[in-house]
C-alpha cells in the first residue's frame, strides 16, 4: 500500500524546528558560560633541548590554576590556560603570543620563554596592550632598562644581577676564609654566560679585592665534550672555579671533571647546580660544590615550601624546577591582584599588581613583592650552599641579604645608565 504524506508539518521538520528553537533559546546561556571563562595564553618551550623547563612551567601553572578554579576562579571566572610550544625560537614565541590574543581570545599572557624569546613577547605585549607576566627570563635588562618599561608588563622571575650579588658575596666570604685568591671561570659562550660571569666577577672583586682571575674558558652552548676545558683549568692550577653552565652541559662537565679528580683540587662554585633537573641526573655528584638555590624544597626552610614541592612531585612524579616556582608565583600574584581589583580587566589588574605584596611559599620572609618602580619580583628566597650527593642535596643554604641586594642593584642600575 502506498503511503501518503499527511498534510501539515512533518515529524522530521517539527524536530528540526524544536532543535533550532532550543539552540536559539539556549544561545545566550552558552555565550554567557563562555564569557565566564577567562583564557590566559602562554607561549613556552615544549620541544627541543630545554623542553623539560617549559614542561615544568606548564605543570606549575596548571597546578596553581586548579587551586584558583576550585576556589571560584578569577572574580568568578574559571581560568582556561592555552599553552603553546614556541620551540625556543623568539620569532615563533612572538607569533604564538600574537595568535593567542588575536585568534584564541586570550585576555592575558604568561610569557614562559627564556631570555631570547621574552623580549620578543614583550614587544607583542607593548603592541597589543595585553596584560603580560614574564615568568622565566632572568635577563636583568628586561625590567631594569627603562626603555623596556610598559604599564601592562611584569616580571615574576629571579634576576641575574640579584644572583650575582648574592653569589659573589657568599663566594667572597669563603675566599677570604680559605685564602682563595686565584680563580678560574668556565661558562657557556653566549649572552647569559658572559653577562652572569662578568657580574659575578665584578662583585667578587668588590667584596674580595685580592681575587685574581687567572684562567677563562668559554665552551660553546650544548658542547658535548669538555675534556680540553677541564685539562686547561687543571694546568692553570686555580684555587677556585666559577661556572654558570647549566642543565645537561653542567652534568656533562661534572662527569668529565670528576674523572680528573678536579673537585678535590679546587673549590667549585656552580650557580646552577642546586636545581633538581641537574641534582637528580648526576650519578656521582661530588660533595661540596657551592651553588645558588634554583629550586629546592628545603629552601626557604618552611613547611609551605616543602608542601608545595611535595604536592608537585605527587602530581607529576618529578621535582619542580626553578621555572616552576616562578610560574606558580605568577598565578598567585594574578589571583591576588584580581581579588584586589575586583575585576579581570587588564588595566585594573595591572594597577593592582604594581607594588603588590603577597604571601608566598617562595618568599625570603614568607612574602614576595612586585616592585612598583620596575614591575619586577623582589623578596624571593635567594641563597647559596654546598651540595651533598643525596637528598636534601643542599642541606644548609645561606640566605642572601635583600638590603645589600637593593643597595648594590641601585648602584649597578646607575652605572648602566638605567637611573
Amino acid at each position, binding site marked *: 500500500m502506498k503511503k501518503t504524506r499527511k498534510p501539515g508539518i512533518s515529524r522530521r521538520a517539527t524536530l528540526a524546528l524544536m532543535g533550532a528553537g532550543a539552540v536559539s533559546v539556549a544561545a545566550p546561556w552558552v555565550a554567557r558560560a563562555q564569557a565566564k571563562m577567562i583564557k590566559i595564553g602562554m607561549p613556552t618551550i615544549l620541544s627541543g*633541548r630545554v623542553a*623539560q623547563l617549559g614542561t615544568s612551567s606548564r605543570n606549575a601553572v596548571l597546578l596553581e590554576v586548579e587551586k584558583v578554579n576550585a576556589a571560584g576562579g578569577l572574580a568568578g571566572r574559571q581560568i582556561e590556560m592555552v599553552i603553546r610550544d614556541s620551540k625556543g625560537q623568539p620569532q615563533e614565541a612572538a607569533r604564538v603570543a600574537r595568535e593567542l590574543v588575536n585568534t584564541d581570545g586570550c585576555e592575558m599572557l604568561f610569557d614562559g620563554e627564556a631570555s631570547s624569546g621574552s623580549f620578543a613577547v614583550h614587544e607583542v605585549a607593548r603592541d597589543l596592550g595585553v596584560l603580560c607576566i614574564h615568568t622565566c627570563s632572568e635577563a636583568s635588562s628586561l625590567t631594569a632598562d627603562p626603555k623596556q618599561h610598559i604599564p601592562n608588563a611584569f616580571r615574576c622571575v629571579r634576576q641575574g644581577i640579584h644572583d650575582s650579588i648574592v653569589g659573589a658575596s657568599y663566594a667572597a666570604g669563603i675566599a677570604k676564609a680559605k685564602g682563595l685568591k686565584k680563580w678560574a671561570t668556565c661558562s657557556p659562550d653566549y649572552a647569559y654566560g658572559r653577562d652572569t660571569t662578568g657580574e659575578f666577577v665584578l662583585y667578587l672583586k668588590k667584596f674580595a679585592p685580592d681575587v685574581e682571575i687567572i684562567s677563562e*674558558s668559554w665552551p660553546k652552548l650544548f658542547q*658535548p*665534550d669538555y*675534556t680540553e676545558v677541564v685539562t686547561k683549568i687543571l694546568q692553570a692550577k686555580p684555587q677556585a672555579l666559577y661556572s654558570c653552565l647549566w642543565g645537561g652541559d653542567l652534568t656533562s662537565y661534572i*662527569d668529565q671533571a670528576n*674523572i680528573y679528580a678536579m673537585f678535590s683540587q679546587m673549590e667549585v662554585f656552580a650557580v646552577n647546580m642546586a636545581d633538581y633537573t641537574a641534582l637528580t*641526573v648526576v650519578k656521582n655528584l661530588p660533595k661540596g660544590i657551592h651553588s645558588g638555590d634554583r629550586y629546592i624544597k628545603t629552601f626557604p626552610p618552611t613547611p609551605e615550601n616543602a608542601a608545595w614541592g611535595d604536592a608537585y612531585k605527587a602530581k607529576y612524579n618529578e621535582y619542580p624546577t626553578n621555572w616552576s616556582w616562578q610560574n606558580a608565583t605568577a598565578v598567585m600574584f594574578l589571583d591576588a591582584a584580581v581579588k584586589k581589583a575586583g575585576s579581570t580587566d587588564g588595566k585594573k589588574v595591572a594597577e593592582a599588581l604594581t607594588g603588590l605584596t603577597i604571601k608566598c611559599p617562595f618568599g625570603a620572609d614568607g612574602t614576595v613583592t612586585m616592585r612598583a618602580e620596575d614591575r619586577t619580583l623582589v623578596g624571593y628566597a635567594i641563597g647559596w650552599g654546598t651540595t651533598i650527593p643525596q637528598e636534601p642535596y643542599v642541606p644548609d643554604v645561606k640566605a642572601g641579604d635583600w638590603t645589600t641586594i637593593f643597595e648594590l642593584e641601585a648602584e649597578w642600575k646607575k652605572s648602566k645608565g638605567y637611573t
Partner: protein
Amino acid sequence: MDLDALAGCLASPACLVTQTTSGLIIGMLLFLVAVGLTLIFGVLKVVNFSHGAFYMFGAYFAMTAYQLTGSFALAMLCGAAGTALLGLIFERAFMSRVYGADVLMQLLVCYAFVLIFDDVVRMIWGPEFKSMGMPSAFQVPPLFIAGGVVPPYYLLLIGVALVAAVILGLGLARSRIGKVIRAAAHNPGMVSALGINTGLIYGGVFALGGMLAGLAGALAAPVRSLTPGMGFSVLIESFIVTVIGGMGSILGALIGALLIGLIRSFGSLGFPLFTEGLMYLFMVIVLVSRPTGLFGKEVA
C-alpha cells in the same frame, strides 16, 4: 691569544702528557663516528647525514643496558650490537631505495630520519637529559704519567678505539670480506656478476658504520649527558674529520680525528677564544692545498 701558555705547556712534560691524552680522547671518539661515515661513503657513495643518530642510539642503548644489568661490558655490547641491527634495518628498508636517486633525495631521506630518530628517543626515554654515570670500577683517582693527569677510563676508551681501528684496517686490507667490500666500492656491477649478494654487502657496511658510531656513543655515555639530538654536534665534527682526512679513507679518518683532537686540546691553551675557529681554519687550509683531503683519492 695566549701563546705564552701554549709555549709553557709545550715545555712542560706534565702539561704535554695531559693535553696530548686530552687530544687523543677527543680524537678517538670522533674517529669512531667519522670512520663509519667515511666507510659508508666509500662503499655506498652516500653521505649519511643521519649518522649522528646512531651515536645517540648507542649511548641510550648502553645506558638502558647498564641500568638493567649493572654490567658495563654488556652496556658496551648492547650499544654496539643494537645500533648495528638498527643500521641494517635502516639500510635495507629505506636507504637501499634511494641509492640511485639524486643526492638531494638521499639528503632529504637522511634528514627526515634525523628528526624521526630524535622523536623516537624523546618518546621512549623522554625529552630531558640523562646521565649513565661512571661504572664503579672506573671511579678511581686518575693516573699520573710524567706528572700529567690521565683518567683510567680514558685509557680504556683510547684502547678500544685503537683496537677497532686496527681490526677495521686489517680486516678491509687482508680478509676476504674486506676484499669483497673494496671490490664492491670500485665496481658493484662486476661483484654482483660474480654471484656475490651486493645487497648483503651494502647492508653489512651500513651496519658496521652504525655499530662503530654506536660504540662511540656507548663509550661516551658515562661522561656525556644524553639528550635527543645529541648526535648532531658530533656529526658536524665528524664531517670536518672526513673532509680533512679524505672522504672514503679510513687512515684519513684516523689522522683527521687525531689532528682535530690535538687542535682542540692545545688550541684551548694558545687560542682560548678561537679553538672552534682553528678547526675550521685547518679544514680550509687542507681543502685549499689538497681538495680531496689528506688521504683522499682523485676522482678520475
